[in-house]
């Protein structure tokens, strides 16, 4: 007889959507209660936030159809019953949020630099890029190009950094800080583990000193005290001084992160490399660092995200980054009282950048399989 035995299906309650719901959301009665409570909160909150941010919000025109040029014309100020967020302030001030006070005729230079930054990052972020080698050459010379583009020189009119602001300053500080801190951090980490006492002591001192003071202190040091130590006539740019402070700060943290990675490499790796006759630098560059950096990816991204957000502290020394422009806008008598809109927008921009960084690090971890335990086998 070819009659098949009837295959028993798994119980309905453990498969499909219902099974997933049972296991994850309604496993026992406390679990179910919490689920119901959260669903209720979301039900209360989501329609309200959607209504405020989108459906009842003004984007450029108020509900009378007039173009909004100050806060009194926002729907919600004309009629408190009518209207949500007043995004017109972002619309009107968008240029300042993105470029600061950069002269309008020269702004193509910033745009070009933004586009080139994307192309420079591409080969770093995506290893399978066709012609990656040539793209990498471009990445190496990009900082030089960006400097002349943004600052001027080589035939471009000079735009003093005092006119930079908004996202431009945030990105310049964030990207330069992260990019410079990485090599410096590696050198410091290697230096701290060095067997030469002078080098190891100097690196340790540097790292511990920088980590021992808050970033604000370093910013003040760079802004206020550095000019007093420099010989007269050397007028160091304000933004450069802040960049120095931010880079020093970030390198110290990066060094400790990478040192953590170095310490996780089993001694066998060092011994194997040495037994092959490798020099110190060859051993580190080819054997140790690639493994150490690979396992340090999560904390590296972590400190980088931290730095990106810390750049908002430059408001303390009077540089108007994205958040600073937001606060400046709030101080304009035309836009008084729109703090919810402005802080919402600023946090959204920061979220987009930091969330992108964190997602990319997850992708990198998966690709490099950092979860695999390297030492044990």
């Amino acid at each position: 007889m070819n009659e098949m035995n009837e295959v028993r299906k798994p119980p309905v309650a453990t498969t499909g959507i219902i099974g997933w719901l049972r296991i994850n959301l309604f496993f026992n009665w406390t679990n179910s209660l919490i689920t119901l409570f959260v669903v209720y909160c979301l039900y209360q909150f989501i329609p309200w936030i959607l209504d405020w941010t989108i459906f009842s919000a003004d984007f450029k025109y108020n509900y009378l159809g007039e173009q909004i040029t100050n806060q009194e014309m926002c729907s919600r100020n004309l009629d408190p019953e009518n209207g949500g967020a007043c995004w017109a302030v972002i619309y009107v001030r968008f240029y300042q949020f993105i470029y600061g006070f950069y002269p309008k005729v020269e702004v193509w230079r910033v745009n070009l630099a933004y586009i080139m930054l994307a192309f420079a990052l591409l080969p770093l972020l995506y290893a399978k890029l066709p012609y990656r080698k040539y793209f990498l050459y471009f990445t190496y010379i990009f900082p030089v190009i960006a400097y002349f583009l943004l600052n001027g020189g080589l035939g471009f009119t000079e735009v003093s950094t005092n006119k930079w602001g908004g996202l431009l300053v945030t990105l310049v500080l964030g990207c330069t800080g992260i990019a410079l801190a990485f090599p410096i951090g590696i050198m410091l980490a290697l230096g701290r583990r060095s067997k030469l006492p002078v080098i190891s002591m100097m690196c340790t001192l540097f790292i511990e000193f920088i980590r021992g003071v808050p970033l604000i202190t370093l910013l003040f040091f760079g802004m206020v005290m550095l000019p007093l130590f420099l010989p007269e006539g050397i007028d160091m740019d304000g933004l450069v001084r802040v960049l120095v402070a931010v880079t020093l700060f970030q390198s110290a943290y990066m060094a400790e992160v990478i040192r953590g990675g170095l310490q996780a490499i089993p001694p066998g790796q060092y011994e194997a490399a040495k037994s092959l006759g490798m020099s110190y630098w060859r051993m580190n560059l080819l054997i140790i660092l690639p493994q150490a950096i690979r396992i340090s990816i999560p904390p590296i991204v972590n400190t980088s995200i931290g730095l990106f957000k810390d750049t908002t502290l430059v408001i303390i020394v009077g540089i108007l980054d994205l958040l600073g422009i937001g606060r400046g806008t709030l101080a304009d008598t035309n836009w008084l009282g729109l703090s919810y809109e402005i802080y919402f927008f600023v946090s959204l921009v920061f979220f987009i950048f930091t969330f992108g960084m964190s997602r990319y690090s997850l992708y990198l971890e998966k690709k490099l399989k950092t979860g695999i335990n390297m030492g044990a086998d």
Partner: protein
Amino acid sequence: MKKLLSIFAVVAFAFSAHAGTLDDVKNRGFLKCGVTTGLAGFAAPDDSGEWAGLDADMCRAVAVAVFGDRSKVEFITTTGKSRFPTLASGEVDMLARNTTWTISRDVNLGFEFVGVNFYDGQGFMVPSALGVSSATELDGATVCIQTGTTTELNLADFFRLNGISYEALPIETNDEGKENLFAGRCDVYTTDASGLSSTRAAASNPDKWVVLPEIISKEPLGPLVRHGDHQWGDVVRWSLNAMIIAEELGITSENVDAQTSSNVPEVLRLLGVEGNYGEMLELSNDWAYQIIKQIGNYSESYEANVGPDTPLEIARGLNALWTQGGILYAPPFR
């Protein structure tokens, strides 16, 4: 800290003392003026990125006096903490950053306040529903107060003097004070009167809030320069005075051209038709004419930035001319 600052000031001064600031500014081709990072009515970037406000006008007036061009100024943003070191180290030529003139700042920090462009003072704001018309009626009220400031001490003094009690709700920032007052967590918010006005203007319904008439402290705000460079101090001082005198004499940006053929001697002296007052300051002889033409007199600047027709709605009060019940007074132009 103050001692340290004054040492910096002295060191910075020793480095920069050799040349006059006026010559430095002329050689550079523009004025570097320190302003706030944004304070409603005093200095804030407008929609086109131009700095506007009472303090910004002060900077522009000096730029006009030196160059005859209101655009020859670079605004350097400074915070409450960074303003003095920035001025001391020579990074800015002057500060117009609503800074209170006090003896320690004038003497100990090594700066020179050249005048007052806004008389401020600590005031109180309450909901109009509270039905209070004077601060002496605030017995037992909950007061939102920024901790660690002179406003806190002034408040304690005022209530003790009047024999009434209050309960303090400590806050950190102006925004926090605003939110607490609007949410009803405190009955009264106290800070400088100009700050109260901008808080009131930010409310969804400003008419629901009143600023009480009592002003309990002196906060004369004015431009300042480094100690020791009197020539430069004179330029800034008389740029401010020129705007005040212009209001006294009724010269505005609109009628200034007609006024050059006036028969009032002081008008002619101010506008550079008679005398060589510009030369004394090492400026062109029409410097004051240009200030009035391009910036306006004090009243015009006040009305445009903080006056009753702006959202801030700050009445002239103490800032009216001495002839009109205020204390605004400039030495004679002769």
